[in-house]
């Protein structure tokens, strides 16, 4: 019985802590996102360009190979 009471108090404290902790975390995530996106915004264009460059090279290689396969198959028929 005393244990059950202890358990109930654990539940209240526990859920309270979980909610408080995560609420504070929500607040700070929002705050940090705002600060970061205002003062150190990610240069999306630059990033994606360099990424695109790399990817487009790969795309081209894929394109070349698949074209080669295609032509080869057509020729086979």
């Amino acid at each position, binding site marked *: 019985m005393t244990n059950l009471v202890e358990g109930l108090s654990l539940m209240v404290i*526990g859920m309270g802590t979980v909610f408080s902790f995560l609420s504070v*975390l929500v607040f700070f995530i929002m705050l940090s996102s705002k600060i970061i996106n205002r003062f150190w915004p990610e240069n999306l264009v630059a990033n994606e360009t360099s990424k695109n460059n790399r990817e487009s090279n790969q795309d081209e290689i894929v394109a070349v190979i698949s074209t080669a396969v295609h032509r080869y198959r057509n020729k086979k028929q």
Partner: protein
Amino acid sequence: MMDGLLTLWRDTGIANFTWGQAIMLVICFGLLYLAIAKNFEPLLLVTIGFGGLLANIPNAGLSLDAVENAIRTANPEVLKLIANALATDWSSTEILAKAYHNSTESQQLAAIQIARDMGFENGMLYNFYTVAVASGAAPLIIFMGVGAMTDFGALIANPRTLFLGAAAQFGIFATLIGALALNWVPGFEFSLQDASAIAIIGGADGPTAIFLASRLSPELLGAIAVAAYSYMALVPIIQPPIMKLFTTEQERAIEMQQLRHVSRLEKIVFPLLVLILCAVFLPSAAPLIGMFCFGNLMRECGVVERLSHTTQNALINIVTIFLGLSVGSKLSADKFLALETLGILALGAVAFSIGTACGVLMAKLLGKISKHPINPLIGAAGVSAVPMAARVVNKVGLQANHHNFLLMHAMGPNVAGVIGSAVAAGVLLALVG
């Protein structure tokens, strides 16, 4: 030569099998079957199952330490010396074994020295358990690996999903009450520590459950770990009916807005933020949350890719193997084939169900006060069980609306659930540990 044959015969498994061990072997084969044939959390259930097989080989003593192996031989002279070291009398080997576990560290050391002097040694699985689990290292390293494999982008894009991860932890604390209430049933005697260790099954997070059980209730570790991983594997069966019970077809069809892009810097700051909050408000959660955040920082910071890669591969795999074998070593008949295990299994199912329901209800509440539409299904992912729960959400969502892809939205509450249960574990450690 007759002596030799006799020694060999007395040593065989047939001559020493107990019913308990036979049943445990069947149970462990069952775990292996579920893991291999049904793909139930195979990484852990294959290793735990096999560890359980090894632990239940009669007369091999793989999961016993030197003193327990000495006691097992039941040689009166050996027993007398050990009883002497423990400053007790002895009438049966069981009583002596119990006395050994209840004696002080210095008495235990004396007993170990005597057992070693007589040529007894720790079993291999006992050594693995000591190094990997009793020290707390293995679950924490796995947690670091999980951190290194987790992308918090979805959570940072929509931080309010943290409330869903918080709500789902109600499963933990409701189960705690349930475990204590079970004490009214004759045969159950869960201490507050036991109840807390059982409750964490509701966190749906393997390493957290093993870590907490190893600190609060090592005796129940085997049953708790098996229950935790089994229910995590059963998420696709347990969750959908509950999700449907608490939502209407219309609610399940709600489409959500695409998540915004999250910058690299936001992702780097996130683990540091979580760590600071942990340091300020809940230091007892520091081992779990600290290692998790460390893994995630290695992932996101972009300058230690070789460490992050090893953490996600070789290191987590090696530790998983030894963690599984060690947990399996706790699947001994005398501890697993007890009424408690049935209670733990029942409570685990309750924990998952309550967690799912609370997550869904919280999502409904959140949907009402939010400007953007929120599909209540994503609340079910708050129990963690990453990434299975999020996938289940996606599947149930698609059933209601063929254009409704909830996977990314469910990843937010899903990883929030991991943090939530680590916080809950921290509270339990602080107040009960």
